[in-house]
């Protein structure tokens, strides 16, 4: 193989790609954006016959600055807190029109955990045939990095700084999955951009299921979390490998599957590359205590979701983090 670059016509190649991608290049996301990747993977798993309702947030802003759009699928953004309701209306309309088109609602954690939670709850309770995907970057990143109900305990944001009296966010990350589970919808799951085939399989599952489905996708934010863009996948992977972000599946509110961790890593490995947790690595007793607190939270996840029991079907090594020659594994 020569080290010369190929003389491929890039513009031509764009039209020859083997998989449909609902989110195109030219969007304005930061380099290494986990959400941009997550959204594209979701669209890839669904295909072109879909309508997306998108809540206000980074994803909305960086994909739809008029006159340009990065979307290849019909897409509507109304407001911050109403994407699930808009999606409900779209679904009802399609049902009446007898069209098989799928409906997906998307939002960030601000739009999902916080301001849009009521509307989401209504959509789930009515069991609309909609897949809701929350890209969880654990803060209001579009506004400049502010604390949300999803921000992890002790993480620093612009509204939860660390200082003499505070060690970042005082409260815990909201257990949204438990709230979703309480709606007893047919399918709910967590996923992460670090395990694309797992993510896509769950998207397909959520889409195929008749009724409401919910997917929480852990999506690193290089700017808001304070890490290099190149590390987005690595950090997302460490979140799983430490137990900090458990990857599970729920049916009718019951956990039915949890991605097993092969080698549990200490939570510090996940925290250290991120600026939002830097204050936990100082020598103060408070820092040590909070660091231990986060370790305990991760351990609790492992215990609660039985992430090392080896009893579940899927492992983090199975089709999710092993590569095969010849590609097409992810697609």
């Amino acid at each position, binding site marked *: *193989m*020569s*080290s010369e*670059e*190929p003389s*491929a016509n*890039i513009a031509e*190649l*764009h039209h*020859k*790609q083997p998989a449909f*991608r609902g*989110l*195109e*290049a*030219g*969007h*304005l*996301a*930061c*380099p*290494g*954006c986990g959400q*941009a*990747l997550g959204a*594209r*993977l979701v669209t890839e798993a669904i295909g072109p016959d879909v309508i997306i309702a998108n809540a206000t947030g980074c994803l909305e802003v960086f*994909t*739809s600055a*008029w*006159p*340009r*759009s*990065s*979307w*290849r*699928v019909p897409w509507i953004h109304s407001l911050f807190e109403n994407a699930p309701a808009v999606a409900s209306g779209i679904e009802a309309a399609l049902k009446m029109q007898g069209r098989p088109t799928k409906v997906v609602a998307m939002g960030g954690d601000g739009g999902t955990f916080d301001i849009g939670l009521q509307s989401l709850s209504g959509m789930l309770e009515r069991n609309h045939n909609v897949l809701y995907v929350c890209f969880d970057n654990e803060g209001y990143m579009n506004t400049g990095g502010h604390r949300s109900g999803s921000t992890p305990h002790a993480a620093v944001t612009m509204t939860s700084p660390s200082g003499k009296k505070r060690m970042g966010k005082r409260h815990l990350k909201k257990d949204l999955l438990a709230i979703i589970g309480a709606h007893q919808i047919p399918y709910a799951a967590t996923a992460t*951009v670090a395990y*694309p085939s797992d993510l896509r399989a769950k998207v397909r599952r959520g889409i195929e299921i008749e009724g409401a489905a919910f997917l929480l996708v852990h999506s690193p934010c*290089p700017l808001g979390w304070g890490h290099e*863009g*190149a*590390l*987005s*996948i*690595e950090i997302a*992977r460490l979140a799983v490998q430490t137990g900090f972000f458990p990857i599970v599946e729920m049916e009718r509110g019951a956990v039915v599957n949890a991605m097993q961790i092969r080698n549990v890593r200490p939570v510090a490995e996940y925290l250290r590359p991120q600026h939002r947790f830097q204050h936990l690595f100082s020598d103060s007793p408070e820092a040590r205590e909070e660091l231990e607190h986060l370790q305990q939270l991760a351990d609790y996840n492992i215990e609660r979701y039985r992430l090392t029991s080896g009893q579940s079907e899927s492992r983090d*090594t*199975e089709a999710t*983090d*092993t*590569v*095969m*020659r*010849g*590609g*097409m*594994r*992810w*697609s």
Partner: protein
Amino acid sequence: MPILTRGSFANAATSLALKTGDWRLQRPQYRHRSAPCAVGCPAGENPQAYIAMVAEGNLRGAWEMLVAANPLPAITGRVCHHPCESACHRGSYDQPIAIHSVERFLGDRAIAEGWNYPLKPSSPDAPRVAVVGAGPAGLSAAYHLARLGLSVTLFDAEPEPGGLLRSALPPYRLPRTVLNSEIARLLAVGIAFKPNRRVGRDVSIDELRADFQAIFLGPGTSRPREWSVDGTVPSDLRTGLDLLREWISIGAIPTYNRVAIIGGGNTAIDLARVLKFSGVDEVHLITFQALPGPAVRREEAMSAAPREIGQALEEGVTIHDRRGVRRLIMRGNRVVGVETVHMKELGTATGERKLVSFEGTETILKVDHVIPAIGQQLDSSVFGNLLGQPGIFVGGDARSAAGTVSGAIGDGCRAAIAIRNYLDGLPPAGDEMPRPIAFDDLNINYFDHAPRAEALILEVEHRSAEKEIEAGISHQDLNAEAHRCFSCGECMSCDNCWTLCPDNAVLKADTRDGWRYAFDYDHCKGCGICANECPVGFITMFDEQ
């Protein structure tokens, strides 16, 4: 200027017109990097590359790629000490790829299927080159010269070609059918073989110089190194290689009761096993090198192949490693024992390494024979004065002390290229090896643990000196092994970069030119995820100008 749409809607995929590549500070590039197995192969093979073809199911292609470097894979697959496997990064993860098994499988398959080298016959007016010595270096040189289109005549002092492969390798390691098949195919590429011609006896160098435009000398090393302990030499001393050759050619070996073999190389191990198979009670092997193990540095370990050492131990050979012979205990001029002492290589103040023996660790070993197997040297009586003369090239054991079959094959190949360059009036090619990719440049999160394919080995009670001990691996195991390969530094088309780019800036490309992906630099923001997540280290980030 765009015209505002009603409700400010936008048309699909119009952001493609926006060149976000302007933001980039670093540029990813697909760049081949050398696999440690390839860097570590003395024969110049690229196991990573032919294993990739095996994984694709193209066995013939894999073999042709393999024999582009090494024409005798069925032989090296059996007898090479495979430094490729010691270098294999998979060894830092679970166990190295069983490269020798893959090589042997391909070699055996070629013999079974009657595959021929993909060579064109040389033209009648091609330059003529004489190759002296039909051992591994000479065979390799002859083959590569033929590949390069030259007309080759191969001389050997013995009636049959093979050199040390035939004279010093016991059949339980290298069955003669394999040896004969490989050499026959090699000679069939149009090499004129002249047996029973010892240069200096049957044909003179001057005659060769008159008839040929270049000469390759691959005579091997035939003269045993001097050996004594403080000047003491037993009267019936015979060297290990000498005994081994005798056994191989006539099938008999002197009867001993207790023997100490001095040395840690393959000859020492081979002889020890042959003696054991012939019924010698006690076979001791004394070497200052260490038994190979995870904690032992490669340069400190015994130079014999680890699997041979293991088998020898199973067969009852006693190995006294990290020991040297301090004194021979004599009765008259016959040996009745040796005094050994613990030895270790230590660093000196100047940074060199020095063998140190430790007082107070002396042990007496009662033996009736001592056999040094510490290697041979070039018999310079014939060739010594020729070295460095124009048109004369030397390779194999005669040139370096490596003493390995694969090293000799690599030497033959390098010599062929040098000869080609010499005849074309080109400067000699440099033979610098690139640095292999570092283990940390791989992303092993993408690989799963998988057991190494182990060849079937005869049970100890069924072993004999005549029957091959180690079998090949199955086709199924071969495929599994090929898929275990990390593909260090070479794209394996796993799609990671294509999948994980947040900017769709990695595109699947036409595979015909060998490139599976292309970067869309109009949109790549240079985040570096592709490089970080490339399992095989095929993507490197470079600063933008």
